[in-house]
């Protein structure tokens, strides 16, 4: 059974004229690392919200089709219940931190679910240690940088022990260095078995670790597959996404008749492919 399954799912927000999602069919299996990308307003955020039931429970509107999360139909299960399965990280870290210190923040989710205090304390300590938040322990969210806030928000989401972590542009408010370290932690989590859905524009940073790249445009999924395959499609240029520089070079070479052995995603890979081509 897939962890998440969209079956012919469409959604339109109340008061909007356009469908935010159009006939989405998507299945997400355990252990996958899926990157979702596409131009602004293409429905990425709505897709994330649909995974944990915020659409259609919190944001109401017109719905067709179904989304099943770990066997629950999101139309029937409350968001608070789905929170045990799907953890959601949002774009703006400040809006996710609702308490006055880190430990309380991490404890907030498990407390809501009624986990026993001893277990909560253990989880909090574990997350503070693994995500290196010790120095922030006593700080007010207001005193932290965006990157630190997002780390705490991640810890708070992971404290619910979800089976799938959905992160909606978690790096958009961060500086490049914090963004990189956050993404590194996400891919570590995936390596340890966490299913990951990540909305991200900076494909040069994430496509190497992702198992799948999903391309969205105007509410529909227009391409879905391994990153190398999706990025080599001409549709990437048509809808305008942040194709990694190395892949752009590959495409340029290909148009001019020079085909490298594989689609490179990083500068290093490109260098290796070019070297190979030269040696031939």
């Amino acid at each position: 059974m897939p962890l998440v399954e969209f079956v012919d799912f469409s959604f339109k927000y109340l008061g909007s004229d356009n469908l935010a999602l159009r006939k989405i069919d998507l299945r997400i299996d355990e252990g996958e690392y899926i990157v979702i990308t596409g131009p602004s307003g293409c429905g990425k955020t709505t897709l994330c919200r649909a995974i944990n039931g915020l659409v259609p429970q919190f944001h109401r509107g017109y719905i067709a089709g179904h989304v099943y999360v770990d066997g629950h139909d999101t139309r029937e299960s409350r968001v608070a219940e789905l929170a045990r399965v799907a953890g959601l990280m949002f774009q703006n870290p400040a809006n996710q931190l609702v308490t006055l210190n880190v430990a309380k923040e991490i404890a907030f989710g498990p407390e809501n679910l009624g986990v026993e205090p001893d277990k909560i304390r253990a989880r909090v300590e574990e997350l503070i240690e693994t995500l290196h938040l010790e120095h922030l322990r006593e700080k007010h969210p207001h005193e932290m940088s965006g990157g630190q806030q997002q780390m705490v928000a991640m810890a708070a989401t992971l404290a619910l022990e979800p089976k799938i972590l959905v992160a909606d542009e978690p790096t958009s408010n961060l500086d490049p260095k914090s963004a990189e370290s956050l993404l590194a932690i996400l891919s570590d989590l995936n390596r340890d078995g966490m299913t990951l859905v990540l909305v991200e524009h900076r494909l040069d940073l994430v496509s190497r670790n992702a198992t799948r790249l999903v391309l969205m445009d105007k509410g529909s999924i227009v391409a879905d597959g391994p990153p190398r395959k999706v990025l080599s499609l001409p549709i990437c240029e048509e809808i305008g996404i942040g194709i990694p520089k190395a892949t752009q070079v590959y495409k340029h070479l290909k148009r001019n008749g020079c085909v490298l052995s594989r689609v490179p995603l990083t500068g290093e890979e490109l260098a290796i492919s070019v070297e190979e081509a030269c040696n031939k």
Partner: protein
Amino acid sequence: MSFLEVFQYTRQESVIHNLDPRAKLVISICLAGISLMFTDIIPMVLMICFLIPLIAAAKSLKRWATSMRGLLPLLLFIIVFNTLLSTTEYPFSHSIGLSLRLVALMTSFSLFFLTVHPDELSQALIQMGIRFEFAFAMSMAMRYVPTLGQEAYAIMDAQRARGVELDKGNMLKRIRNIVPIIVPLIIVSIRRALSIAESMESRGFGASEKRTYMETLSFRKRDWGVVFISLLGLVILIHFRFFFSLPEWVSWGLPF
């Protein structure tokens, strides 16, 4: 407004900080009650002499002193106006007593607010039977005050950049200048509230009827001790104040 500093929590490791907030609430209310029972100078001086060591035990003497210095203009105001307008026999002496009482009252309550973290306060409220949602709303308000302040500054800068002259003109004009700040601020806040609600919902807010708490407050022996001594002191003083004729020196005052 520096005199309000004495009501702001400061992180410290002290005997007073370690007391249960409920015990501190009792002691603060008892001390304030005692301060309200007297108006003469001598009892007020004694009261303040009793309070200062408590503030010192909370390691907050410096903050208290700054606050009291900030309070000085207000105290002078009270003294001047009371002396001029009071109908008592010795108006100056009476006004001094009144301003000392204000100091004693503020100090009594500051003992609570200086040493109780907002989180502890909401936890105390919850354990006193207030619904979690209400107590949490209060602590969230504290959480978002600085964020809102920051947002207000950003909007002010944006409006200035577009040529709104915020600090020019007469009183009426200045009041009208608030509109281009307040309107965007309200809109931004509503948006933020929605996004906060979304994130809280995703973290299981309201999921379980039986919400648990990582830390619960527990009333220890010393907390009971504090409560007992405070109430005993209050009762004894009420007794002396209302059922005995106090010795002469207590009501000593300046002869003008």
